[in-house]
């Protein structure tokens, strides 16, 4: 049964990846061609010529002004995917058109809508404003993951794995007496997991970037917008330093860690990662350090999850997992994604939370 959620927005690329060169990426199993018009607008359409299926991203296919010319026989398409020229005749067959995709460039990402285009609501795209905002400096990248997206969701929703998989980078021994709260808003489609540590070790990731030498207040607030966008609001400050009563927080160091979890296929994933900070904005050394550190952490996850995908693929179906308390947030995310996937397949879905008649 397909697990990819249809009728959703997904991150397809960083805006910087798409220019006046043809760019192709497979999103949710659909091969999509991206390019930027002369006016600067990103367009997205199927990456296969309707004639003989030649990939339009494959040279000698090329852009000519605001059209794409197939490198095999010269079928030519405009920015909306309509065929505007075919070789050797003036009549253009009515069916000569590419599937085009709703696309939005926002918060440094190129978002593409997978599913029924009539259901593409731009306002439904979750936001990560720090990635393209005055007052923040961002480092970012993308790593291909040879594993299903759900494994990365599991991974990110439970940060207790930091201690084992990422020790020495972002992991520190667990701090006892720090409750972890998981909140689920089914209507808004948000899972929130927060852990506020009042007195914690400062891992190198934060010690070297902030310059804090002692113990810290460390807040980790995960805000996951299934199926694609994961935000980790991280605040660190010297022990005892808290936000002010008026809500401002000039004495805290804020790092917004953003992941976009985009299925490439049912068993592979684009792992977009970004780290935005509101301190040391012009310090290239800090940027280099955070870029290298976070990429190292991402690659540690990639290595582990690639192995896990391999193992799961080679097993017969029906193995039972065991979940414990650390999995509370991950299980909540799975439930929402499963419901979304069923809705996307057009199945009748009983709401997880039953609403009494007459209350809405």
């Amino acid at each position, binding site marked *: 049964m397909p697990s990819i959620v249809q009728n959703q927005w997904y991150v397809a690329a960083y805006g910087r990846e798409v220019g006046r060169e043809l760019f192709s990426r497979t999103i949710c199993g659909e091969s999509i061609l991206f390019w930027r018009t002369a006016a600067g607008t990103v367009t997205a359409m199927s990456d296969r010529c309707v004639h003989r299926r030649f990939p339009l991203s494959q040279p000698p296919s090329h852009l000519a002004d605001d059209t794409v010319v197939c490198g095999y026989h010269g079928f030519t398409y405009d920015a909306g995917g309509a065929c505007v020229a075919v070789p050797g005749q003036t009549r253009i067959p009515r069916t000569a058109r590419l599937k085009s995709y709703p696309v939005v460039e926002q918060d440094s990402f190129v978002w593409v809508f997978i599913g029924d285009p009539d259901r593409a609501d731009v306002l439904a795209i979750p936001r990560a404003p720090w990635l393209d905002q005055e007052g923040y400096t961002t480092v970012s990248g993308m790593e291909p993951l040879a594993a299903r997206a759900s494994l990365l969701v599991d991974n990110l929703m439970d940060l*207790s794995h930091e201690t084992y998989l990422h020790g020495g980078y972002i992991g520190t021994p667990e701090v006892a007496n720090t409750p*972890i*709260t998981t909140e689920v*808003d089914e209507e808004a489609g948000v899972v929130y997991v927060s852990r506020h540590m009042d007195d914690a070790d400062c891992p190198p990731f934060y010690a070297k970037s902030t310059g804090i030498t002692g113990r810290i207040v460390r807040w980790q607030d995960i805000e996951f917008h299934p199926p694609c966008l994961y935000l980790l609001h991280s605040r660190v400050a010297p022990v005892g330093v808290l936000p002010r009563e008026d809500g401002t927080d000039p004495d805290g160091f804020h790092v917004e860690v953003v992941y976009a979890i985009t299925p490439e296929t049912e068993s592979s994933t684009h792992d977009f990662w970004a780290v935005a900070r509101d301190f040391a904005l012009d310090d290239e050394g800090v940027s280099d350090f955070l870029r290298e550190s976070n990429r190292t952490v991402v690659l540690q996850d990639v290595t582990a999850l690639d192995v896990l995908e*391999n193992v799961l693929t080679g097993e*017969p179906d029906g193995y039972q997992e065991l979940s414990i308390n650390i999995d509370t947030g991950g299980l909540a995310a799975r439930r929402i994604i499963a419901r979304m996937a069923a809705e996307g397949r057009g199945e009748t879905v009983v709401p997880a939370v039953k609403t009494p008649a007459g209350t809405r």
Partner: protein
Amino acid sequence: MSTPTDGLPSTQVPLNAAEVRPLRSGELTLPAPRQVLEGERVMRVNWLPGSDRLRGLCFCGAEAEASDPNDMWEWLLAHPDHPADGPAEPPTSGPLPAPPAHYVTDPLVIRFAERVPALV
């Protein structure tokens, strides 16, 4: 299980690890969940690392503790029909089936083993 949200203990009460059973009214051992999301229909679960219990709070005010996150979510998501005797509890005694073997169907994923002929 308890339905009112007032008068609940706000600090951690030492946990008796042997006490694994549905809670009667007022028997909540963990602090109440933090409330960050502002929606009107938010389900919340609190966990204190080191504790074997989860404390769940429905937006209707019903709350309970559980030992297993799946059972905790099942109980919360049953709103408005939260089972009165609390979330299901995994059995703590009785015979267990033998753990299954780890079967592998694809030889390409056999790891940590040199697949060379064994000469005896």
